[in-house]
């Protein structure tokens, strides 16, 4: 049928603009991919003089890369864990009770994501200094947790708002204590929000530069390592190899999330509201 919206053709100029926009966003990614195979190791010239796989071997053998990846994963995992715990607790408190100063506290929780990272960085640095806390991977993790909490909090608080308080009351009424109610009623209903918030928090922490710069001691996370590597004109394509690795690793959770979302949609059609 002609009236079907999906059958209608977009104007040619609009199509061209959309394609151009997409190219602008994704061509640089393709270039990064390309230069991972370049034989030229001091500058990016186009087209690359030749293609080689040797940078993958070089990257594999460099301990500093492994250290940076390891640190980034550790920091992201632990700040996400802290964020999931504190974020969901805060969300539960905010959505289930009314108390004096509730709005103010809600704003304070969200503030770290709204404030420029440089402010968070400076204030944390001076706070750690004042407290005599030495900079370590723990200080990086704490710094990241400040904004990771927001990601989890925002997602979970929205879910809690859609959850009638009568579900919790019904569960208690039927004999479930607080822990059982959490496990059998609350958790299944906030699980996807918790997962989405956690993934966002992980991603945010994994590529954070500014707060990390202020809260790190001698260690470098992966983004910091890349930044310093770009400045040094030594084995440039190695950085690209690492970037390719990051792209591949990032795709995995994206695909999983898409599959999960599709499954949720499918069961929606089956009737879950």
């Amino acid at each position: 049928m002609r009236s079907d919206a999906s059958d209608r053709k977009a104007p040619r100029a609009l199509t061209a603009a959309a394609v151009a926009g997409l190219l602008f966003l994704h061509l640089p990614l393709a270039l990064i991919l390309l230069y991972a195979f370049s034989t030229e190791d001091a500058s990016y010239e186009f087209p690359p003089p030749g293609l080689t796989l040797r940078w993958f071997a070089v990257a594999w053998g460099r301990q500093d890369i492994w250290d940076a990846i390891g640190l980034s994963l550790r920091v992201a995992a632990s700040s996400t864990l802290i964020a999931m715990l504190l974020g969901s607790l805060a969300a539960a408190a905010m959505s289930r009770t009314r108390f004096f100063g509730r709005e103010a506290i809600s704003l304070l929780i969200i503030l770290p994501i709204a404030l420029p990272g440089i402010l968070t960085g400076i204030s944390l640095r001076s706070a750690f200094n004042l407290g005599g806390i030495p900079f370590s991977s723990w200080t990086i993790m704490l710094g990241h947790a400040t904004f990771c909490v927001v990601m989890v909090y925002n997602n979970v608080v929205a879910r809690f708002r859609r959850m009638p308080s009568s579900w919790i009351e019904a569960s208690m009424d039927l004999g479930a204590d607080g822990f059982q109610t959490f496990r059998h009623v609350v958790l299944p209903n906030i699980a996807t929000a918790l997962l989405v918030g956690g993934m966002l928090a992980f991603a945010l922490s994994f590529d954070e530069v500014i707060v990390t710069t202020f809260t790190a001691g001698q260690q470098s996370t992966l983004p910091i390592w890349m930044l310093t590597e770009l400045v040094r004109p030594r084995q440039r394509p190695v950085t690209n190899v690492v970037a390719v690795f990051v792209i591949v690793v990032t795709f995995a959770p994206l695909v999983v999330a898409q599959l999960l979302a599709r499954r949720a949609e499918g069961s929606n059609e089956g009737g879950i509201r």
Partner: protein
Amino acid sequence: MDSAVRFRNVCLRYGKVVALDGIDLEIRSGEFFGILGPSGSGKTSCLRLIAGFDRPSDGTIELHGRSAAAVPPYDRDVNTVFQDYALFPHMTIEQNVAFGLMVKGVNRRERRSRAGEMLEMVRLEGLGERRPSQLSGGQRQRVALARALVNRPSVLLLDEPLGALDLKLRQQMQVELRSLQRTLGITFIFVTHDQGEALSMSDRLAVFNRGRVEQTGTPREIYEQPSTRFSAEFVGDSNIVERRDPDTRSQEQGVFSLRPEKVHLSTREPVADAHSISVTGEVADVQFHGASVRYVVSVSDGRSMTAVAGNLGSRAELPAVEPGARVWLSWNSDDLHRLRESESR
């Protein structure tokens, strides 16, 4: 008969808002007890106190003679059918019904069989694998009922259980709830703002108004001997008759309730007799209700009274009057019921 629930001078305040203001109430074991009142009268608050979701600000609540103050909701032998049913959307119907058994650690086999029994009892056998969202409102209501009864509570609380159902279904569920309660023999306490429902279903009921109990009694007592102007007007229709004649004896003065069906309407002046009182007026409106006809009559000093005549067919003729006609209303003075003057609040 021992008491299932007893309220002793219970108050409930949220900040400055007084939800319950000195409630004394006794609900007996095994009775179908109605709590009737307009919205905001404190009837749901009362239910929440019995379930244990809220704590009284003052006074005590006893369940089967024991103070419930320190007993959390999950340790009370009381279950609730929620107004919005509160079914768990992530569980199947069978899992919903078996929830109370699962958290008590009953094994899977027994859970299945008892949930099956419950679903059979509410006539939903075969729907156990569905999700709540796949059921109609009436079916969800039955699931909520089955889920609340699976733990075999001694008291079942129902918060406006039929509010969301359409008229036919509601009438059917009223009958089913009554017979279910008679079979199980447990105490049902149900909250409603529908006076017809409260009268037809309850063994006894309490009329709530502004956080207080106006009156408790059997439906018949409350209908025929309303003690306050509020119960007279909220439960059924009522003509409020004030007699302040200085000539009459003092025991005949005061405010009285007179049910419209006790008022006789005629087109001719009735013969005076010692027990009957009559007034004259002009018909303002005639409403045909099928089983009965309701006449609104303007009497002296701008007030109006209502008379209801049953549509008895060949046994008695309905007065055929048009608005504007002059009629006489008469009633027996024994049908006047004296009201307690409401305390001003």
